[in-house]
């Protein structure tokens, strides 16, 4: 009898594996959270897209809950995302852009064409700030609370339903 039970072991092991596979089936294996969650927004010093002579640093993000959106003119998804960002700005959320790996000229042209929801844009032509933020594509969006701590991170395109279902509740949570 004991031996008979032993023969069932492979079956049990397989059923466990199959159940695990079933559970994983709907999950997106590429989804990852940012390593910067719950940490201070990295220190930086950069000029703004609007004014090459104006230098800003991380103190810019203190005092109010802010959405920091990393974008670039070369990024088609950023164009599709623009209406949602404008919507968020209209809802009274403070927006700051990071113009990532771009030229001033192209970045300004982009904002002129697709709208500008940002209070100002940090100009990051070499991707240094992006690197410190752990950005590896665009668009990416970070929610920074009034103390300058990163509270939420959104990888990729913000869909219209994400605005209502994810972003706005997160902003409310940290206000």
């Amino acid at each position, binding site marked *: 009898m004991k031996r008979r039970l032993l023969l069932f072991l492979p079956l049990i092991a397989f059923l466990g594996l199959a159940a695990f596979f079933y559970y994983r089936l709907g999950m997106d294996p590429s989804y*990852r959270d940012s*390593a*910067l969650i719950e940490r201070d927004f990295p220190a930086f010093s950069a000029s703004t897209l609007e004014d090459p002579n104006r230098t800003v640093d991380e103190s810019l993000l203190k005092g109010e809950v802010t959405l920091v959106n990393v974008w670039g003119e*070369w*990024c088609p*998804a950023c164009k599709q995302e623009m209406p949602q960002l404008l919507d968020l700005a209209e809802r009274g959320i403070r927006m700051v852009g990071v113009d990532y*790996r771009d030229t001033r000229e192209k970045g300004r042209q982009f904002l002129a064409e697709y709208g500008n929801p940002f209070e100002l844009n940090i100009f990051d032509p070499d991707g240094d700030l992006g*690197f*410190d933020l*752990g950005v590896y594509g665009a668009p990416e969006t970070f929610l920074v609370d009034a103390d300058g701590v990163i509270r939420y991170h959104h990888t990729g395109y913000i869909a219209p339903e994400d605005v209502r279902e994810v972003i706005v509740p997160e902003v409310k949570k940290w206000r």
Partner: protein
Amino acid sequence: MALIRWLLFALLLTLPAAAVAVGIEVRDFDDPVMQERYRDLTGSMRCPLCENQAIGDSDAPISGDMRDRVYALLQDGKSDTEIVNHMVDRFGEYILYNPRLENRTYLLWGIPVALLLAGALLVALIVRTRRNASAASLSADEQARLDELTKRKRSS
């Protein structure tokens, strides 16, 4: 296959222009040891964008940035641990191809070692019982063959 998947992935996610081209940087190293360290570091960190490639093997722009940073930190005289921590701070534990030994990875390293010990034990147990069996009796097949041989002899 890794690159194929990366290409497919890259088509769906947006990247700076001219993304898919072999990124070969010409770098000068003061000594061969540092060059070796550079190769080991870039070979053991995973590109955060690609599906499954080391930053040293990947042509994604972020991998190029990360290689540049590794090189710069090496030139600054940083240790391997400091460089790895610098990267993990930004991109997370995910980028380490060699996961750190900690609570959640004990089993990853422990199971193979345990299996090896269990395997050795199993061999010892099986051979012990079989050694006794060899003295005791013939196998079923041997028995069948013996029967047949004796039968054949008897009938002929």
